[in-house]
């Protein structure tokens, strides 16, 4: 069992992945693991990660980032202001 303690040491840690058009960022310590972003994503970009944040929750991770179409449904449906999508370039 490996614990990732970087979330505790870095209060504003970000999980950030990007492809040519969009960047998906997750503010690790705001996530409450409700799973809404994973459920609403139409192209299934997000999966639950193995990172544990300061409150004991597993934030999502943009594992299939190449599928992101930039609809920002995850950003609109996040109740905790923890995920956002930026346009790159």
């Amino acid at each position: 069992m490996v614990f990732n303690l970087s979330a505790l040491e870095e209060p504003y840690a970000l999980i950030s992945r990007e492809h040519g058009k969009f960047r998906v960022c997750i503010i690790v310590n705001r996530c409450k693991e409700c799973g809404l972003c994973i459920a609403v994503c139409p192209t299934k970009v997000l999966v639950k990660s193995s990172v544990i944040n300061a409150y004991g929750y597993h934030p999502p991770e943009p594992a299939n980032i190449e599928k992101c179409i930039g609809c920002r449904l995850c950003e609109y449906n996040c109740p905790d202001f923890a995920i956002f999508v930026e346009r790159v370039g």
Partner: protein
Amino acid sequence: MAMKTPPLIHPLDKHLRLDRVPTMYCPGCGIGIALGAMFRALDRRFNEGLLDPNRIVWVGGIGCSARATLYVNYDAAHVLHGRAIPFALGVILANPNLQVIVIGGDGDIAGIGGNHLIHAAKRNIDMIVVMITNFVYAMTGGQVAPTTPVGVKTTTTPYGNPEPPINVVKVVTSLNANYVARASVTTPHYIESFFYKALGMKGFRFIEIVSTCPEVYGRHIGLRDPVDMYNELKKRVKYKQKPSIEESDISWDTGIVIGEFLERNNPSYLELLTGVRGK
């Protein structure tokens, strides 16, 4: 030790008091979605230059939804249970240049403050009332609320709720309100567009937001998982372009109609007081 100012990371961070984030809301609570959509509407009005961030006042009573006033980076008041609308009336009469936003749950606005809601709508007072409906008194442990559907087992109705619920949209529409709309947290873009529209109007504006409460109401109806409850609500929500008032009843079986139920331009209380528009 001096508190370090948290950096602005999220695009909506300038609207939040970041030292209080993450919020106390349960995982999957719909209030955060509604709040985010309202912030986006405010952003659009600020960018148009029609609204000044320093002239916005949020007022909330008691409850999970009303606690949003503690998380917004604006002037805000957190007052007695159900008395958010009288406080907002005092604010708007003291300084008519302010834009007052009342936020609260169904127990706060329709239950304990129900009479204040009726009379504020009757007098067409210049304020926006956002009621976030989750069908129970969630913060106090899941007691029956005026909007609880018939038959739902709650903490205070262990054999099922015998009373038919109040339809707040119908009540407010029958009075002198200028704008009545209903949205759902499963459709945040409609919350944004209705709130955006309400910010540009005068008089009494009422927006009901049907929300998910997986922790308390979801436990009562057997949808404990936030994603399950979100999907079940999404299945039942139907948007209509011009819904009639008769369709506004919230029923978990036949669906929940969202849309703009009423839009008119009656003279508001302040316009009548200051003589801008005659009777």
